[in-house]
């Protein structure tokens, strides 16, 4: 079985590198035909509007939605979080699975992008926030998994994790340990 990486646009090759470092098999997903034998899923960073447009005619998102609802471990980073969210503040289309409201580009434009010290997987590590979204609110069934100062920058609801930042750009030991636990072992991540 392999981890599917949504490969329409964005940082999918960086996520591929994470899985190579973990010796985990992967499949780049471009249409419905790529979805066989997938046991976990990664939605990468990139431009969410672009990804939504590219899959429009193939209705790939409907198939992804079914897979995620069936309970496979699913990670979304940045644009991936936006795609997973139940509500996006500007009304953008999303899969509507992760019970939260997110705001796109909420920290501002690129000049306001930053590296921030994030508490994630019980460690503190610098991660990249690039024109990043913010988690405006989340329901009580959603737990916090990552924090930047007082802000929640990562959440989990059952099999779905959404992060505002880009661990695929650092591929540090802390992230790879967490990813191995979540995607490869299928274990739940720890909360604070």
């Amino acid at each position, binding site marked *: 079985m392999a981890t599917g990486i949504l490969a329409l*646009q964005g940082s999918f090759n960086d996520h591929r590198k994470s899985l190579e470092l973990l010796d985990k098999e992967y499949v780049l997903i*471009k249409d419905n035909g790529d979805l066989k034998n997938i046991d976990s899923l990664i939605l990468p960073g*990139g431009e969410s509007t672009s990804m939504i447009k590219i899959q429009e005619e193939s209705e790939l998102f409907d198939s992804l939605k079914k897979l995620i609802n069936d309970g496979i471990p699913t990670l979304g980073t940045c644009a991936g979080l936006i795609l997973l969210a139940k509500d996006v503040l500007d009304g953008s289309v999303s899969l509507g699975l992760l019970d939260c409201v997110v705001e796109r580009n909420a920290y501002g434009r690129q*000049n306001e992008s930053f590296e921030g010290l994030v508490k994630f997987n019980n460690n503190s590590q610098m991660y990249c926030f690039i024109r990043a979204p913010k988690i405006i609110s989340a329901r009580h069934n959603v737990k916090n998994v990552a924090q930047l100062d007082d802000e929640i920058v990562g959440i989990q609801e059952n099999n779905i994790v959404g992060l505002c930042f*880009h661990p695929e750009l650092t591929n540090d030991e802390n992230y790879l340990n967490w990813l191995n636990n979540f995607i490869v072992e299928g274990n739940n991540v720890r909360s604070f």
Partner: protein
Amino acid sequence: MKVESTFKIKKGLAEMLKGGVIMDVVNAEQALIAEKSGAAAVMALERVPADIRVEGGVARMSSVETLEEIMSTVSVPVMAKSRIGHFVEAQMLEELGIDFIDESEVLTPADDKNHINKHDIKTPFVNGATNIGEACRRIGEGAAMIRTKGEAGTGNVIEAVKHMRSMTEGINRIISSDKNQLMSLAKEYSAPFSVLEDIKKEGKLPVVNFAAGGIATPADAALMMQLGCDGVFVGSGIFKSGDPADRAEAIVIATTNFDNPSKLVEVSKNLGEAMVGLNIDDLDESEKLAKRGW
């Protein structure tokens, strides 16, 4: 704790644009068409290269009003062109909050010898290059992304192919050389030694590398992707064609599915007229934009 505008953050935005299409736009209306067609970003400029060729005159940064209007119209990143060496245009683009600056040979150069010192500006830069030495010099000056120069405004992909092949050749040569040969290669390429070290270590350019200059069809975009580019810029190819929205969307889908001929056939149907092309041999040497910069 937060740190802004590190090189990692500058480079990071380019990483997020990979596999995408960046489209030239001259106003907010075109920017909206580009965004709706699936553009990963838009590139604002005063006139598209094909028009600059026909009309002549000095081509400059877009007007401030146009830039502000584009930024408030679309949610994808907005890039904008500054003239080569015109660091004040770059400072203004930084002040405006543009997401990426293209120090571009398509506009009329402001300095015949020097490019902008890009380390001093918070906003990341993309620069054109025709070969590995030029790419390394721009990275040395602080460019966070490289693109081929190609020959803009011609609808002719041959120069982009030439530049991409030349860069790949240079990269392979650096990778396969041993450490003792690196300085001599740096001398040959007139390139900073440290950038060569980075290429040797990473096995590729240390920044994202897109194709640009002459891409007019979905097949052109897929060709550049198969040659190893991370994504494509399309300039005149979209808004100088018969049906910009359909062509833009087809190029976006072709860039994602660059290695899938059946998808490429499907998206290439009923696109209307492609832009009229120019033969590079018919251009006067002074008309070649790729010769600008060094």
